[in-house]
């Protein structure tokens, strides 16, 4: 029995009212602004976003360090990223994000390593600048093929007054202009990962772009593009790059999955920036537009409908050769896409999904689910801003439940009442819902599968959603004698 849109909206409103009852008044008032139901025709989703999380509610959010080291900088493979401060931050984020890369780890690539200044009490008391200098010297001795260093600040750095900029400049000079980037991404800054993205973007601007053209010999072509905001989780950027190349474009840089510093440096030579994760890299895209006149276009490589539209949109910035190339690519993969849909849609049609993810995914993956006949009935952003919720209106259906910076309690109650056929969220949520007997897929790490981007990725996405929802284990959660 399916509800009408009006009934859904009424149910959602009741549900929101119900979850708010658990909070003290002050908190209920604040949380109420983050929960809502999408109304068709409205310019955004009607919820407040990008404000401080409330103490004690079990937010799912992370911090600025996670946004900078974990997301933007960490995947740049030929640089060494120092987790500067105590040991924990680097330890918990060590190789956890599946930013795939090709390289000899420990020799010319360093992504899945944990470099830390492992702050001790004396570093807090006397400052860590001297130690940081020494660390850079030791890096030069032990990892001579590194092409740059970034300093990813953890909370204490900004609190004890260390001057990591001065250290970086001094050491850069000492090492013949070596790229050394101080990043003020202390975890207490801002309200979530989001500020970390912004700070990291700004440091690329200030400490990479503004250092001048490092590769004047690099010869451009009219078809040069840079992939911006793809972290190559499970190989996503590769499954995207191959399509862009097949349509005749030349990808000169990947930001930042499987990226190298040379690619960052050459990005201002692109003719178009193609932006996947708007949230984490719109800043640098805007900057490149303003400073270098490079237009940027957002695209969505989840599911054939959106891929098709995106390929055409990207091609529209180029000549007929590329436009024809895009059509060829679309035609080439259509048969495979039809086969995937033919196989999986009967198994997944009309299944309902609730999402809670970061970055672009709370909206971007909706089309992929719809290609399989599934319906997203609830979604929300861990660290979205209002411009994300505006963009979401192009994806969600009237009456979709919207929850910004959802709390553990709210998410559990929403899922319990709505009983979707699938929840897509993160590792912290996965086991909560599986205990409840609700199929789940991690939509940050692709649950160790992937890629999910591109045509190759969609086949995997469809397979994985099917294996989650149609897993026979869900028929076993109740003991027969109970």
């Amino acid at each position, binding site marked *: 029995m399916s509800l009408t849109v009006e009934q859904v909206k009424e149910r959602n409103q009741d549900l929101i009212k119900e979850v708010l009852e658990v909070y003290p008044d002050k908190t209920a008032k604040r949380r109420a602004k983050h929960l809502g139901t999408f109304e068709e025709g409205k310019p955004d989703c009607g919820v407040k976003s990008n404000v401080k999380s409330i103490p004690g509610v079990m937010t799912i959010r992370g911090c600025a360090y996670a946004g900078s080291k974990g997301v933007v900088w960490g995947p740049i493979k030929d640089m060494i990223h120092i987790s500067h401060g105590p040991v924990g*931050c680097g330890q918990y984020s060590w190789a956890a994000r599946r930013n795939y890369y090709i390289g000899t780890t420990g020799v010319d690539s360093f992504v899945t390593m944990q470099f830390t200044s492992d702050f001790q009490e004396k570093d*807090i008391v006397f400052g860590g600048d001297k130690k940081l200098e020494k660390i850079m010297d030791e890096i030069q001795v032990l990892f001579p093929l590194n092409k740059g260093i970034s300093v990813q600040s953890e909370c204490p750095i900004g609190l004890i007054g260390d001057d990591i900029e001065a250290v970086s400049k001094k050491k850069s000079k000492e090492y013949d202009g070596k790229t050394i980037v101080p990043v003020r991404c202390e975890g207490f800054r801002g309200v979530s990962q989001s500020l970390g993205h912004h700070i990291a973007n700004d440091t690329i601007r200030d400490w990479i772009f503004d250092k001048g053209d490092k590769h004047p010999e690099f010869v451009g072509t009219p078809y040069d593009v840079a992939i911006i905001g793809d972290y190559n989780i499970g190989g996503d950027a590769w499954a995207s790059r191959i399509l862009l190349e097949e349509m005749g474009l030349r990808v000169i840089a990947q930001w930042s999955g499987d990226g190298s510093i040379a690619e960052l440096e050459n990005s201002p030579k692109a003719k178009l920036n193609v932006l996947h994760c708007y949230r984490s890299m719109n800043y640098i895209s805007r900057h490149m537009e303003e400073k270098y006149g490079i237009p940027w276009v957002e695209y969505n490589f989840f599911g054939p409908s959106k891929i098709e539209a995106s390929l055409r949109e990207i091609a529209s910035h180029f000549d007929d050769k590329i436009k024809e190339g895009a059509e060829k690519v679309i035609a080439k993969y259509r048969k495979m896409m039809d086969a995937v849909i033919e196989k999986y849609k009967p198994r997944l049609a009309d299944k309902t999904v609730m999402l809670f993810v970061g970055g672009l995914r709370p909206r971007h993956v909706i089309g992929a689910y719809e290609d399989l006949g599934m319906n997203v009935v609830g979604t929300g952003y861990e660290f979205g801003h209002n411009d994300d919720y505006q963009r979401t209106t192009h994806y969600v259906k009237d009456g979709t439940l919207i929850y910004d910076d959802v709390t553990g309690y709210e998410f559990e109650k929403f899922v319990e009442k709505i009983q979707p056929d699938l929840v897509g969220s993160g590792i912290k949520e996965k086991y909560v819902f599986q205990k409840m007997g609700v199929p789940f897929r991690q939509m940050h790490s692709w649950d160790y599968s992937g890629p999910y981007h591109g045509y190759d990725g969609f086949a995997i996405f469809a397979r994985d959603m099917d294996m989650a929802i149609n897993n026979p284990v869900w028929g076993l959660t109740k003991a027969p004698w109970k």
Partner: protein
Amino acid sequence: MTQDVQNVVDHFNLFRSPEYKDMFADKRKNFEFAHPDEKVEETAEWTKGWEYRKLNFEREALTVNPAKACQPLGAVFVAVGFEGTIPFVHGSQGCVAYYRSHFSRHFKEPSSCVSSSMTEDAAVFGGLNNMIDGLANTHSMYKPKMIAVSTTCMAEVIGDDLNGFISTAREKGSVPADFPVPYAHTPAFVGSHITGYDNALKGIVSHFWEGKERTPGEKINFIGGFDGYTVGNLREVKRIFDLMGVNYTILADNSDVWDTPADGEFRMYDGGTTLDDAKAALNAKATISMQQYCTEKTLDYIAKTGQETVAFNHPVGVAATDKFLMELSRITGLPIPDALTKERGRLVDAIADSSAHIHGKKFAIYGDPDLCYGLAGFLLELGAEPTHVLSTNGGKEWEIKMQALFDSSPFGKDCHVYPGKDLWHMRSLLNTEPVDFLIGNTYGKYLERDTGTPLIRIGFPVFDRHHHHRYPVWGYQGTMNTLVWILDKIFDEMDKSTIVPAKTDYSFDIIR
């Protein structure tokens, strides 16, 4: 290649197709400005030699791939071991996201924990309001029986006073006047996760015991310490205690909350030391800790209440388990039952059956100091050589103790202990002085890749193998598990190295 819908391939095989391989080569050649392959190979070779090892061991400031985490992780580990208790970490919120992810990746279980979500304004003015609001919200939302507070480094650097803040929050009605809010300062820049375990447990017991009169009884307190096998180990210890008839309280018993059933209900809280038991634990006759270096301050505190305290070093093996049981028997006055004697005999039998395959083999071990000690002791007992034993969070005292252990056995003659070193040091050790097997956590797989040393996964965290935390490694049965894991790897390696037809497969034996 496009996907074949009958056989969809993911990252394992997709990227091995020629189209992708060509794409990678083209990217490297034209856009990465990479070092020439010869240079990379030459440098890679250099990192394997003695010269590099010397430079590597001269490091004073840089830490690379450490095998330790920070204090609050240990505090959270303790907190969830009490009935209806939610850990509340005062400071930046990203830390809590990390702890929860870390535990969930190891245990494949939910890990509930809240943060006071301090930001810039709290950095300037202090986090008092975050504490007041946070405790109120947590209390009303998650209906805990206890909220156990610890700190991130942010709160420690700005010097927030937990005791004062919690009292103020209580006065402001965040929690009822008699609601337990034990706390511990757990600065990330001091010690490691095992220090945090110690501080948090001391914080909780002292919360319940401070100012109370002790009436000595017959019960025994048991503390497991920070332990990746806590689910299996605590259950095994309970089984042993029940077999012996010991009247016990397990402090910080998180074996249920990290092993809840999938039956349609999410249990944020499950099992755990009851708060009544935690209070009454003051009256115990003695407290036993399985991990000395996780419980130094806690045992010190407990000893001052008049209890006897006994600490082990993550006992694994026949002799170590014997010692554990005999101490237990001595303290309680209860005999060791025949059932356990029989288990012991079975373990000795298993070792006798298999020791030919282990005897003389060289091992490298890394992990928390107690785990290293326990495993090294077991290997010596098997006639194996724990050649390199490394603990990033092991100190001077541990070093001396490890050396004494080596000195106590002829198999320890060529063994060395490395306190305060990291896994990049270990890489040099394995490259220059190779061993047959490596024992460590999941991160050891990078060492396996770089040095070709087969990894036996024993430690924390283990992210890439499932469910081993459900098995004990303590007691005779636990030792049996450990023995089997080691043997499985030895036999797998034997098969792998003899599998080439017409070349090596004469030794591809069907009976071993």
